[in-house]
C-alpha cells in the first residue's frame, strides 16, 4: 500500500470519526432537550341523554309528586289530606233518678199490728230527662251503675226486692234484694252500688216508648214484738241509674257535632313561582267520606281559601246552598256498615277555577259535620263507642292548563373546578338538543352570580350568563283538544372560552336558573292544553372542547 494512501486514509478516517461524533452528539443533545409532549385535541363527547315526563319534572320540584293517571293517560295533580274520627262518646246521659217514699196510714198500721206483716208491690217508670230532645230507646252500658240509697224508719224488719225488668244481662232482668232488719236503731240506712257493666237498658217499655226505665218494688214488713209503728215512719228509696259510657245507644240522640275538620295543603308545584298567570281548567275539591254512624249527618263548609305567594288570601266561594251537603249513612237495619259518599266542589258550584288561577301556595279548608241537623225526633239513631268516620279532602288539579307567563327560578350554590395548570382550555362548546312533546314552551337562561352586599343588604351580583340570548324550547304542536300530536325539535349551542371559564371559576359562587313558560299558541292565542303521561321532554347535552395539554416527560 502506498504511503500517501495510508496517510490519506488515516486523515479520512479521523475526519469521519470527528464528523460522526459531532452529528451524533448533536442528535443526542436535541433528544435531551425534549422535556414534554403537547397535544391540541378537539374532543366531542355526549354528556347527558335523558327524557323526562311531567312526573319526573314535578319530582325535581316537589316531594309530594302525587299525580294520577286516567285510563286515557291524562294526568291530574292530586293533593290529599284527611281526618279520622277518634273514638268518642257523642252523647252524655245524665243520671236517671228513681225515688220512692212509703208511709203507713192508721188503717194500715192497725192491719199490720193485727197481722204482724205487711206486703205490697209497686210498679213505676223512672224518666230520663232529655236536654237535647233525645228519645233514648236502648243503651248498652259500657261503664255504669245504679247508686242505691235506702232509709227505713220502721222499727220492724223490712224485706225489699227491686226489680228492673228492662235492665237485663243475657236476657235476665236485674233484681236487687235488700233486707233492712231493725236492731234497735232507726232509721236503718242501706247505701250500695249496683254495677251495670254489660247490661242492656231498654227504655221503650214505659208508657212513652222512650226515655223511661221501669222498675218494680216488692216489700214485706214484718212486725217485731214490742216495737211500735207510727204514722211518721217512712221508707225512702233514692236511686240513680248512672250510665257513664255506652257501648251502643239507640234512639233519637239530638243534634250533636260529629267532627270539625280543619286542614291545609301546600301546593309545591307553585312553590318557586315568581310571577305568572296559570289557569287550570277544571280544578275540583272532592270531599270523600266513609261513615258508619246511623244518623243523618250534614256537612257544612265553613272555610275554603287559598294563599298566594305574596301572602294574600282568596276564598273559594261556594254557591248559595251548595256549601252544605248531607252524607249517606247506614239506616238502623244497616247499623255498623261503612257507607261511602262524596261531595264535589267545582266550577259548577263555586269560583274555584278563578281562585286557583292565582297560583296558590297553600289551600285551607274547614268542614263541620253535625248529626241530626234538622232535629227530626222521629229519627232512629244508632251510635257505638267505636264509630268509624273518615273524611278525605282531595284537591284535583287536572293538568288541562293555560299558562300565559309562568316563571320559575331556581338558585343554588355553584362550584366550578379550575382547570389544571397543564391544561389550557381554548374553548368549550355546549350543544343542547331538545325534543319536546309537552304542550309548553319555555325560554331558559342560566346565570352565574356572586353573593354581594348592596347598601348593607345581602344581595347578589350578576357575573355572566351561559347563553348570549335566552334559549327557546318551543312546545309541541297541539290539536283542537289541546293534545300534542307533533313534537318540536331544537338544537342550540353556546361557546365558552377558556378565559371566560377561568374568570367564572374565580368569581361566581351561585347560579340562577330562570325558566319562563307558556302553553302552546294557536293563531297568536294561548290554548288550553292537556298533559298526558306519555308526553316527554327529551334532551341531550354534548360538549366539544378544544385545548392544549402538556405532559412532562421528565
Amino acid at each position: 500500500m502506498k504511503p500517501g494512501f495510508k496517510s490519506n486514509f488515516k486523515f479520512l478516517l479521523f475526519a469521519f470519526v470527528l464528523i460522526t461524533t459531532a452529528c451524533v452528539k448533536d442528535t443526542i443533545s436535541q433528544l435531551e432537550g425534549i422535556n414534554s409532549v403537547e397535544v391540541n385535541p378537539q374532543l366531542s363527547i355526549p354528556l347527558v341523554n335523558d327524557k323526562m315526563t311531567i312526573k319526573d319534572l314535578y319530582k325535581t320540584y316537589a316531594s309530594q309528586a302525587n299525580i294520577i293517571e286516567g285510563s286515557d293517560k291524562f294526568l291530574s295533580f292530586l293533593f290529599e289530606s284527611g281526618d279520622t274520627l277518634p273514638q268518642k262518646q257523642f252523647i252524655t246521659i245524665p243520671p236517671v233518678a228513681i225515688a220512692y217514699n212509703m208511709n203507713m196510714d192508721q188503717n194500715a198500721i192497725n192491719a199490720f199490728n193485727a197481722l204482724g206483716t205487711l206486703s205490697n208491690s209497686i210498679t213505676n217508670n223512672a224518666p230520663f230527662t232529655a236536654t237535647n230532645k233525645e228519645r233514648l230507646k236502648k243503651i248498652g252500658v259500657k261503664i255504669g251503675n245504679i247508686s242505691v240509697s235506702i232509709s227505713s224508719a220502721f222499727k220492724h224488719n223490712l224485706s225489699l226486692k227491686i226489680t228492673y225488668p228492662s235492665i237485663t244481662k243475657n236476657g235476665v232482668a236485674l233484681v236487687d234484694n235488700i233486707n233492712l232488719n231493725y236492731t234497735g236503731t232507726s232509721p236503718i240506712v242501706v247505701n250500695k252500688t249496683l254495677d251495670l257493666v254489660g247490661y242492656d237498658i231498654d227504655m221503650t217499655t214505659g208508657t212513652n216508648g222512650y226515655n223511661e226505665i221501669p222498675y218494680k218494688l216488692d216489700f214485706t214488713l214484718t212486725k217485731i214484738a214490742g216495737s211500735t209503728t207510727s204514722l211518721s215512719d217512712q221508707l225512702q228509696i233514692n236511686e240513680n241509674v248512672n250510665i257513664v259510657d255506652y257501648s251502643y245507644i239507640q234512639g233519637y240522640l239530638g243534634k250533636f257535632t260529629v267532627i270539625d275538620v280543619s286542614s291545609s295543603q301546600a301546593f309545591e308545584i307553585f312553590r318557586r313561582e315568581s310571577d305568572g298567570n296559570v289557569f287550570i281548567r277544571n280544578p275540583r275539591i272532592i270531599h270523600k267520606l266513609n261513615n258508619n254512624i246511623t244518623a243523618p249527618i250534614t256537612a257544612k263548609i265553613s272555610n275554603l281559601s287559598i294563599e298566594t305567594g305574596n301572602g294574600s288570601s282568596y276564598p273559594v266561594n261556594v254557591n248559595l246552598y251548595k256549601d252544605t251537603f248531607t252524607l249517606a249513612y247506614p239506616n238502623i237495619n244497616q247499623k255498623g256498615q261503612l257507607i261511602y259518599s262524596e261531595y264535589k266542589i267545582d266550577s259548577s258550584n263555586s269560583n274555584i277555577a278563578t281562585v286557583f288561577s292565582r297560583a296558590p301556595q297553600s289551600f285551607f279548608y274547614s268542614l263541620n259535620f253535625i248529626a241530626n241537623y234538622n232535629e227530626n225526633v222521629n229519627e232512629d239513631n244508632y251510635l257505638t263507642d267505636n264509630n268509624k268516620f273518615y273524611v278525605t279532602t282531595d284537591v284535583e288539579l287536572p293538568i288541562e292548563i293555560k299558562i300565559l307567563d309562568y316563571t320559575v327560578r331556581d338558585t343554588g350554590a355553584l362550584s366550578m373546578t379550575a382547570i389544571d395548570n397543564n391544561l389550557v382550555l381554548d374553548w368549550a362548546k355546549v350543544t343542547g338538543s331538545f325534543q319536546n312533546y309537552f304542550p309548553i314552551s319555555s325560554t331558559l337562561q342560566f346565570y352565574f352570580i356572586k353573593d354581594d352586599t348592596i347598601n348593607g343588604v345581602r344581595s347578589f351580583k350578576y357575573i355572566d350568563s351561559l347563553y348570549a340570548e335566552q334559549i327557546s324550547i318551543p312546545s309541541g304542536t297541539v290539536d283542537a283538544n289541546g293534545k300534542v300530536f307533533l313534537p318540536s325539535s331544537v338544537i342550540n349551542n353556546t361557546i365558552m372560552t377558556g378565559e371566560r371559564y377561568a374568570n367564572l371559576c374565580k368569581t361566581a359562587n351561585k347560579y340562577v336558573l330562570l325558566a319562563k313558560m307558556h302553553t302552546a299558541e294557536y293563531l297568536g292565542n294561548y290554548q288550553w292544553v292537556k298533559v298526558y303521561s306519555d308526553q316527554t321532554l327529551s334532551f341531550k347535552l354534548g360538549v366539544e372542547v378544544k385545548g392544549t395539554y402538556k405532559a412532562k416527560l421528565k
Partner: protein
Amino acid sequence: MFKKKLITYFIFAGISINLFAQGDLTLYQLRNLNQSSYLNPAFFSDYNTSLGLPVFSGIAVGVQLSGFDLNTVFNSRTSDSLVNLGNFYSAINSKFFGAKLFQQTDLFHFRQQFGHYQIGLNIGTKTNCNALISKEFIGFAANGNAAFAGQNMSFDGNDIQVSSYVETGLSVAREFERFTVGARVKLLNGIANVSSSGFAMNYQTGAISTDPTIVTLGGTMNSCGLPYLQDSINGVKNQDSTFNFSNIKPFSNVGVAFDFGATYRVSPRFNIHASVIDLGSIKWTSHVYNYNLNSVNITYAGLSYNQINDSATKQQYTDSLKNLIRTKSSNNAYSTPLTTKIIFGAEYDVTFRDRLGLLIQFQYFSGTFFPSYTFSYNRKVGTNWDIAANYSYYNNSFSNLGIGTSVKWGAFQMYIIQDDILMYINPNDMRTAYLRFGCNMVWGQHRPRPRF
C-alpha cells in the same frame, strides 16, 4: 432475453409500501462468513470448516423505525421544545408507524464440507420485537375525535409481536456443476412471547356532540412466560402477578422452521440465487395466558339524570361498562409464525475481485410483504480481506448505505457489518441501525474465485 426478463422482474418485484425490512443486507454479500448461510443454506463457503465459539461468533442488534425518523420528532417541536403530537402525526408518511428491535446471538456453530456436501449445525438466540401502530391512532390522540366528526375511524392493523427463542439448526447443502441447493431444519425453543392478533378498533364520532359515540373493540393478546395481568382466571384468584424466571420453560414451547435455498450459475460471471428463510412457527404451551375481547360494541349517548346524581346507579353503570370491556382470560396454547423472508439475488463478477449484485428481499409480517432493494459492490482485497458496500431502498428511505468487512487472520475470521452507515453522519434521518460483528474460526482449503 430470458435473463434480461428475469433481471427486470427482480428489480421491479414488490408492490407493497416499505415498512420493515430486516437488516442482513450486507451480510448476504460476505459469502465467506458462515453467517451468510443463515440467509441461504445453499451458500458454500470458500473454507472447508467453520467454527463459532459462544457469543464471540456473532452478535447482531438492530433497530428500525417505520413511518418516521428522528427528524419527524424534531420537526414537530414547538418553539419551546415541546413535541407537538399533531405535528408529529402530520409528518408520519405512511398508514402505520412503528419500531422493530431485534437481537441475535450465535451461541455455537460448526460447518464442514464433505466433498460436494456441506453440513452445518448452529445454535443461537433470537429476540424480535415488532410493534405497529396505526397512524390514525396517533391522529386520534393528537387531534381528538372531533376532527373526525361524522366519520368512522378504524384503527385496525395495530400489532405487537415480541418473541424470544433458541434456534438449533441443522443444514445440508449440495453443490452440483452449476447450481447448489440447501436446506436447514431448525428446532425452536420459545423463551417468552407477547403477541396480539385480530386487534380491531373502530371509533365512530357523531356529527354533532349530542350524537352517540360508537366504539367497537376486539382482539386477543397472548403471552407466554410472563405474569398474569388480571385478578383471577377461571374463577381462581391470581397467584401469578410477578415475573419469575422459573416460568421460562423453553423446552415446553417447541417449534419447527425450515430454510430453503438454491443458487445457479447462469454463466461463469453471472449467478442468481433465491431462498426462503424462517418458514415455521412456535407453539407456546408453558405458562401461557390469553386475553380475549370478543368484538364488543359500545354505544355511548350520554348519561341519564339518575346516572349522574345517584351514586348507586352511577356505580352500576360504570361496573357494567367495565364488565363489557373486561377481557376473558384463559390459558390455552397458541402458535406464532416466524417472520418469513423471501430473498432473490443476482450477481455479476466484473473481475475476479469485483462483484456487483442486486438483492431483493421480501419480509412477511402482519399479513403484508415488505420489500427492500439493494445494489451491492464487493471487493476482494488480497486473499483474506473482503469489503462490501451497498446502497438500498427500503422503509420508504433512499438513504441507506451499508458497509461491511471480513478479515481472516490465521484461523480467525473477524467481521463487522453496518447496514446504515449514514446514521453516523445524519442521525436525524436514521430509520435503521444495524450492527453485526463477530469472530469465527475457519480452516480448510481456500477455494479461490475463478479469475476473469
